[in-house]
């Protein structure tokens, strides 16, 4: 049985599905009926890959981090998604979905964003294709990710504040879904992570799978091997992790490490460590693990990184966790910040704070020695300067 392949009804093991209000049924049905055939169309593929090459700047390098490797006694490669146009892996998905939206005849695009990376990546492709673009973003995130808000506006997108609940990614997603309910015919919703109703988790994972596809080729060239021993990625909703794991998920020789945000500590009440704190339930149209009260109300998460500040994970990751296929480790705000500084000073790369979580985990894995490891460097830290400055310990 495959870990990465979704069932006909949209399930990974016990997780997934499409628990959507009737209002969204036509949109989801349309997407479900068309996404596989569109993605398999050679003309689409060619256009998608041409944009990834010439617009996004792919393939991104697989970089041997020598000083980091020396420190941990392992061979550590960094998959440089931070070098993608717009500064993170998010654009792999938005390029794909905008082409798909065009083929579905949609005229307008909406999206949610947490850190603003997906918002910027969506605004970017909308500018590229001349499509109207509205981005929903939590009020709290608008304040802490100011540069990305301005980037979206410069690109011509309208940024709308989500002011309900915790005013972060979860609420931005709610608002985007409500907008879609109200504009069902001419609008495509570009979800930025492997969350939401089927077929979104599968579709987004496929668009991000270019990451592991390239890793395989690059490791072959550099090391003469078909797969690494271990891949590491941070998980909020889980799109960069899905892309990093994609071609390795069914190869049990590859250890999949998923790094969640513990926030101020798993038991602090201010955390976003979904697998540690979550239970099965339904969030944003999908059965998955989510943080909730015993009465089934969704809990407000906390992470210093806006992109990981989400009370659920994609159903694929819930399945990787529940089946034991993935190893989930939580990293606290402080540990992540320190790891971000370490990477900056050891390798000359300032990572996004989301990505810093993936590096902090190196101190928590005791079987690193001698291994060939790939860490997905999912985004760069330019957007996070304010948070680094506020934290101040460098």
């Amino acid at each position: 049985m495959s870990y990465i392949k979704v069932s006909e009804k949209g399930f990974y093991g016990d997780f997934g599905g499409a628990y959507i209000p009737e209002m969204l049924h036509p949109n989801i049905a349309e997407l479900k009926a068309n996404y596989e055939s569109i993605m398999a169309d050679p003309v689409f593929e060619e256009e998608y890959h041409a944009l990834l090459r010439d617009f996004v700047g792919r393939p991104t390098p697989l970089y041997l981090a020598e000083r980091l490797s020396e420190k941990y006694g392992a061979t550590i490669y960094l998959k440089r998604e931070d070098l993608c146009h717009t500064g993170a892996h998010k654009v792999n998905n938005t390029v794909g979905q905008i082409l798909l939206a065009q083929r579905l005849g949609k005229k307008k695009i909406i999206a949610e964003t947490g850190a603003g990376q997906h918002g910027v990546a969506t605004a970017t492709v909308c500018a590229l294709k001349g499509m109207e673009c509205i981005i929903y973003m939590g009020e709290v995130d608008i304040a802490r990710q100011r540069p990305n808000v301005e980037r979206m506006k410069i690109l011509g997108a309208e940024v709308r504040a989500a002011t309900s609940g915790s005013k972060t990614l979860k609420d931005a997603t709610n608002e985007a879904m409500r907008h879609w309910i109200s504009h069902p015919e001419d609008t495509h919703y570009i979800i930025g992570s492997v969350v939401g109703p089927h077929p979104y988790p599968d579709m987004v994972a496929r668009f991000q799978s270019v990451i592991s596809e390239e890793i395989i080729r690059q490791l072959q060239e550099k090391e003469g091997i078909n797969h690494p021993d271990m891949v590491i990625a941070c998980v909020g909703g889980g799109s960069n992790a899905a892309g990093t794991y994609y071609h390795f998920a069914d190869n049990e020789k590859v250890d999949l490490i998923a790094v969640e945000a513990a926030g101020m500590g798993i038991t602090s009440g201010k955390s976003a460590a979904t697998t540690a704190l979550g239970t099965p339930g339904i969030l944003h149209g999908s059965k998955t693990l989510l943080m909730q009260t015993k009465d089934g109300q969704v809990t407000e998460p906390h992470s210093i990184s806006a992109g990981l500040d989400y009370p659920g994970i994609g159903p694929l990751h819930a399945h990787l966790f529940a089946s034991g296929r993935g190893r989930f480790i939580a990293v606290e705000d402080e540990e992540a910040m320190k790891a971000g500084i370490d990477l900056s000073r050891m390798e000359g790369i300032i990572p996004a704070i989301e990505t810093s979580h993936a590096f902090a985990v190196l101190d928590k894995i005791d079987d690193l020695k001698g291994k060939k490891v790939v860490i997905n460097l999912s985004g760069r830290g330019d957007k996070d300067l304010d948070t680094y400055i506020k934290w101040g310990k460098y």
Partner: protein
Amino acid sequence: MQRIKKLLNEKDSDLLSVYYTAGFPNLEDTIPILRSLEKAGADLVEIGMPYSDPLADGPTIQDSSTQALNNGMHLQLLFKQLEGVRSEVTVPIILMGYLNPIIQFGMEAFCAKCAEVGVDGLILPDLPMEVYEEEFRPVFNKYGLFNIFLITPQTSEERIRAIDEMSEGFIYMVSTAGTTGARQGVREDQKAYFKRVEAMELSHPTLIGFGISDNQSFTEACKYSKGAIIGSAFIKHLSSEGADEASVQRFVDSIKQKSSSLN
């Protein structure tokens, strides 16, 4: 006899269904509002089970849900409040809410509780027809609960027929593409949609909801259906005019009065 079925057998037109959120504006208002609604002449009552992330709801019902949750409302407590209510009210009661709190409660335990306190039906917008059919239909049937399905202007004729087939009681006809909330008037395209569904001669009656807010929109909706559902406008009224019996009476009168005089 199932109270929803009985009502539909007895009354043929101008049914008024009123929605409000349990535990709003105050935690203990749930039952007094129910009593007042029956007394004021509501034909059906929909009680909202507040949820943190109500995807199909606009700002008014979202805010009332947040306030109800802050007041301390949860499912166990709602059932406790509803205990014994059938000794004083006979109006059909429908619970409306989202799937996650119910799944945490346990679907079978939830349905058993509904039957025990005298709930007649459920409206769960994020429970798709397919999932209901595969997983939950037997348990709804076991406890005599009607599952009320939604249709929208975008629902295909084929799907409306399938929903009609699976429905019991009535079909909730969402008046427009959108979330819950009061709107002005009834547009021509909405009328065309109402007529289209009316012409399908479904085996179940429809009640029109979303955007029905006053006598005018209620009357208009009743031309094309067996009745209409009012939610957000009532929530707003409770906020501004209070939740006492006289206030509830005034609201129901304001909706019904002219429609009865027009007849």
